[in-house]
Every structure is written in C-alpha cells, then in structure tokens.
C-alpha cells in the first residue's frame, strides 16, 4: 500500500459508490472524495424503479439517496454524466470521458452491472427496453398506459415486478420465460408456482418454457416471435434476463476478475489500493464458504461500508446474511440467504392465504428463507441463516410454535 489516503476516487455513483462516500465522511475521513457517475442523476435507489416509481407514485427526487446539498456540505465532489474510461494502477490515475484525469490514493470501483441484451433480430427496435436506470423507466412509463400490450421477457424479479405494475395499470401483460418456472434462478419451485398463480389470477398470460426467436416490427416493436412461429403482439417489450458486471475497466487495468472483480472480505481487489463494491464485486460469501456476486441493495450498502472501513483502517461492520425484497401486487417477499445447494425445502403456512414462508435447508441447517407477507419468518430466518442454525423441519412447519420460540430454541 502506498502512504496514507488523501484522495479517494469512487467510480460509479450508484448505491454502493454513494454509500462508500457517505461512510467515509461518517467515519471522519477528511481528505478529498470524488464520486463519478455516468448517469445524469445523483446516487438514487434503484428498487422502486420497477415498483412505485414505475407505477407513478413517486417523483424522481424522492429516489435520491441524499439531497444534492449533502454533497456540497460534505465536500464530496459529485461528477455526474461523465464516465471513467481508463484506470492507471501504477500512475494512480483515472481518465474521464470528458478528457480530464483524476489522481487517487485509494480507488473504489462501484460500476455496477448492465442488463444483458438479447442478441436476437429486432432487439434494437423502438419499444424494446431494459429496466435499470431512471432514464429507462422514464421511457417505459410513457408506454405504460391502460389497454396497451406489454410483453415481459424473463420472469425474474425485475420482470415480474414490472408485470405486476403493468397489470395494475390496466395493461395487457404477457410474461415469456424460457425456464419451466418463474424466478428459477433466485427461488425454489414453491415460490415459483405461487407467483405464477398470482400473476395469472391478475390476468397476466404467463408462458413458461418458451423460446424467443426475435422481435417483430418496422421501426418500433409490434410483437415477439416465439420458436415455432407464433407471434405475441406487443406495444412494448421489457427484457429482464439478468445483468453482466461492468468490469471491463478493471480487466483492462490488470485487476483479477472472474464473473466480477475479485475482492477479499474487506472488498480489496488484487491491487492493495483498489476496492470494488456492489453488483460488480465477486466477493467471499462468508456464510456459505464460497464466493459470488450479489445483486442487491444489501450487498451495495455493505460493500460500500466495508470498503470505506478498510480505507480508514477502521473495524469492518458485521457482514450480514444476504437479504432482499420484492413487491408484487399486495405481496411483500422478503428473502434472507441464498437457496442454491438446498437439499430440503420446508413450507411454513399455506400459500393459499397469501402469507407463508419457504425455508431452504442443507444438511439440516437453514441456508435461506423466502417469506411472503411474513416478516417474523424473514427476521428470525435471517438470524437462523447467519447462525447456520439446525432446526427440525417438524418445528418449522408447526405454526403453533412462534418464530420467536423457534429462534430462541435454535440459538440456545
């Protein structure tokens, strides 16, 4: 490491980059902080983009993580609408698209991820869009009117949340998913089956196991062509088929990358003065004994805090079990942990009541929980996941035993 940090540059002004800056100031760092983002807006919350903001319930300003005045008051140089085009590790400099260079003693890369695009004919037609940024949603909102036909490609959280908003706005919604269940990457079949039913009950045509061949239309999209030739008519197509980490700058600079920028528990990359946080970071998943990339608010906030703590030489905050939420219709799904690798699932409560939870176990230990309209199952479940607790499935299914009691027994 080279000397004490006086100048910090943060690439990426999203939730992780913003948090790194806020935590540095909160921790008493007195040097220079420059936060560079390629979007026009200051750091903002992305989750409402596919929920309340899409629905028109919030103005953009209410998404901002901090008011604009905060950055001046805390001497954080916020550079928006500009991008870093190169990182010089030896020279401790970054180059900006606008031409200038910025020197740094410590660098935080929080460049996030970008939606994966479908390399299919017609993918660049007008009316085919991803959903990642405020600018994306401002376009989508103009198309989101009652009676219009919305096709959602990909039944992940973003796709399903947008589908729910579309249905609530009176759009005719079709969801097209390649896998045999919705949410297949992030949740088990019980949750998948539940959300398929919920969307169908709301009038949405959920089509599973379909392959898409391209988009139809002249200039702007008019439909989605499926394998076999069927065309699903659409006035607007939302593509939500996952994201790719924005790690090209790091790769070109020579930092070690896998499916993301490789970092240690403190979010330090292969260069001792460089950190990465948020969607772009490939980090140790300490509760699981493996590494991975997480795409969530929790991960962004935690990564920003960890990087800031490491830069200041302060003790790191406690690493939480991964957590996440999704709002669809009147349902709040709260997730703790990662279900991958589960060898047993236990359903607590009746999905028919729209309030239930699915616990995922591996070798008898709870590794994740999906809780629908069930905060106790989420909150206690999160603690059980962090403790890698063993709980008998017979107790988990028994609603006469409260989550408080289950939690107390497991930890004693």
């Amino acid at each position: 490491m080279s000397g004490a940090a006086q100048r910090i540059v943060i690439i990426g002004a999203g939730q992780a980059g913003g948090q790194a800056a806020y935590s540095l100031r909160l921790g008493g760092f007195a040097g220079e902080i420059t936060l560079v983002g390629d979007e026009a807006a200051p750091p903002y919350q992305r989750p409402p983009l596919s929920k309340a903001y899409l629905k028109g319930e919030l103005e953009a300003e209410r998404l901002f993580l901090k008011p604009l005045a905060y950055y001046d008051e805390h001497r954080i140089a916020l550079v928006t609408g500009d991008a870093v085009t190169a990182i010089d590790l030896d020279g401790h400099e970054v180059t900006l698209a606008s031409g200038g260079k910025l020197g740094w003693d410590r660098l935080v890369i929080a460049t996030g991820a970008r939606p994966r695009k479908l390399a299919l004919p017609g993918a660049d037609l007008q009316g085919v869009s991803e959903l990642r940024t405020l600018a994306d949603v401002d376009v989508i909102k103009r198309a989101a009117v009652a009676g219009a036909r919305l096709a959602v490609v990909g039944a992940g959280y973003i796709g399903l949340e947008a589908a729910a908003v579309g249905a609530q706005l009176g759009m005719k919604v079709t969801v097209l998913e390649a896998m045999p269940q919705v949410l297949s990457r992030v949740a088990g079949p019980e949750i998948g089956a539940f959300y398929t039913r919920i969307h169908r009950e709301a009038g949405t045509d959920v089509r599973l196991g379909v392959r898409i061949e391209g988009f139809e239309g002249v200039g702007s999209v008019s439909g989605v062509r499926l394998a076999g030739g069927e065309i699903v008519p659409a006035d607007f197509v939302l593509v939500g088929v996952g994201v790719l980490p924005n790690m090209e700058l790091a790769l070109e600079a020579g930092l070690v990358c896998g499916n993301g920028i490789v970092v240690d528990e403190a979010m330090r990359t292969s260069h001792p003065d460089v950190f990465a946080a948020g969607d772009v970071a490939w980090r140790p998943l300490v509760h699981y004994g493996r590494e991975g990339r997480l795409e969530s608010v929790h991960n962004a906030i935690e990564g920003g805090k960890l990087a800031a703590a490491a830069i200041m030489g302060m003790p790191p905050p406690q690493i939480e079990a991964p957590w996440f939420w999704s709002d669809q219709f009147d349902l709040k799904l709260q997730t703790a942990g990662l279900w991958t690798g589960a060898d047993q699932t236990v359903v607590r409560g009746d999905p028919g009541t729209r309030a239930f939870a699915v616990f995922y176990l591996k070798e008898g230990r709870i590794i994740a929980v999906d809780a629908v309209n069930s905060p106790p199952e989420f909150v206690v479940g999160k603690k059980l996941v962090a403790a890698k607790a063993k709980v008998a499935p017979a107790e988990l299914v028994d609603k006469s035993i409260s989550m408080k009691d289950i939690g107390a027994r497991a930890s004693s």
Partner: protein
Amino acid sequence: MPKITYVDSSGTERTVEGKNGMTVMETAIKHNVPGIDADCGGACACATCHVYVDPAFAEKVGKPSAMEQSMLDFAENVRETSRLSCQIKIRDDLDGLKVTTPESQH
C-alpha cells in the same frame, strides 16, 4: 409546513420542515438528519428507520400496520412507542411531532 423534531440518542434536537405526504424517514434523509439508515428506502423491509414517537403524539400518529408491527416485534431495543419512520406520513396535524432515534439501527 409541519415541523418535525428529531432527537438523537445523545439528546441533540434537530427541527426541520416536513412536507405533507412525505414520510418521517424521507424527511430525515432530505435534511441530513443522522440516526436513520433506511437501507430499504422505505419499503418496510429492513427496520433500519426505527424511531420512538413522543407519547404526546402517539394517538395522532396511530398504530403500526400488521406488517410494520411484525417487523418491529423483532427489531432491537423496541419500546411501546416504537415505529418505523418510513411508515409515518406527514400531515398538518403532526406539526410539532417529536421522534427520538435509537443508538443504532443495526
């Protein structure tokens, strides 16, 4: 404009002007009031915007929803006056509301 007073765990008071329809959490963020993390941004999903409502306003502020109550049931240092500030919308009759933030939100 209704005024809201935030008291931190050391007793320092900050009074700011709120706006009807915005939440007590958002108002804190907008005015750089420390002590409220609001990790989930107001989705009632994380319980990091926990406050204690001045008992004089308890009735006006009202009771938490079932969802909020069950998030609160498992938060740290919960008292009878605990609320999640992302679920309290500012109205004219909440002018003068005083809330205290806990020592830690985590």
